[in-house]
């Protein structure tokens, strides 16, 4: 994801979506970039039968939420104004507050709240249709390669 001052928001969104499409696992989970820019990203994905972690309830597996949070944090790093060349996760902690409702989309919002020369610090939350009541939250440190 490059950021050229001449590109528009629509261009950014298109470039971001291409970035996501190039990640096989993000494609496999049908992730979609909803918003991107200035060290922030919003990425969502649909519920699917094969992602269920508890067959008794139909609730999606926590690991899926991890993959979405990790991707969203990585995208937020790449969208930081200091334009890192690439990024990788150093650590990621996820708190699971409640089960995501079966059948509903899950949306992650990540924010790069601090950036050093080589490390990005991230916060993220994931919600379903009930946007006021988070499903999970995450904090992480990512590499910022220059």
């Amino acid at each position, binding site marked *: 994801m490059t950021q050229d001052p001449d590109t528009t928001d629509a261009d950014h969104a298109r470039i971001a979506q291409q970035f996501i499409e190039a990640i*096989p696992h993000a494609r496999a989970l049908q992730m979609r970039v909803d918003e991107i820019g200035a060290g922030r990203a919003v990425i969502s994905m649909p519920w699917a039968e094969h992602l269920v972690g*508890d067959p008794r309830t139909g609730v999606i597996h926590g690991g899926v939420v991890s993959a979405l949070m990790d991707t969203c944090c990585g995208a937020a790093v790449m969208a930081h104004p200091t334009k890192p060349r690439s990024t990788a996760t150093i*650590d990621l902690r996820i708190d699971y507050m409640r089960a995501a409702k079966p059948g509903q989309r899950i949306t992650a919002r990540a924010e790069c709240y601090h950036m050093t020369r080589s490390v990005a610090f991230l916060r993220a939350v994931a919600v379903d249709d009930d946007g006021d009541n988070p499903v999970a939250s995450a904090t992480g440190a990512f590499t910022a390669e220059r």
Partner: protein
Amino acid sequence: MADRNEPLHLIKSRRDSALNALVSGVPYMSWLGIQFDRRGDELTAILPFDDKLIGNPRLPAIHGGVTAAFMEVTAIIELSWAAMWEDLESGRIAPDAAVPDSLPRLPKTIDFTVDYLRSGLPRDAYARARVVRSGRRYASVQVETWQDNRSRLMAQATGHFLMPQP
């Protein structure tokens, strides 16, 4: 205590079918392709490499989220397996994949922290979990995952879980 003279094939089939029931009941584990290897009560989770697990197509490297998911699955199965071992060996329970009600309810993840140590190569990955503390209500579990060399970890994780209440 289990019968010392119980035929070996019965012991193995009881343990293998219980493990299979635990694992095959979760769609997401089948989708990722996760399998378990059992030696006595020791479990090793195996994640066979697949293109859909890639997170960085240029290296290529396994997606960090996949690594986290693989370790979380390993922790949950190890925790359930350890919790049901006594009941399984004494014959009090006999989990059967075909009978959903016979399956133990799974622990719920409270939090999970992953420490990424090396990027995941496009190869199979393995993981083992250790239940550090398992109380009536809460449990703490550590997980290690590696690829070619057991001593060169790809990642380590620690998580807290809420145990299913009887």
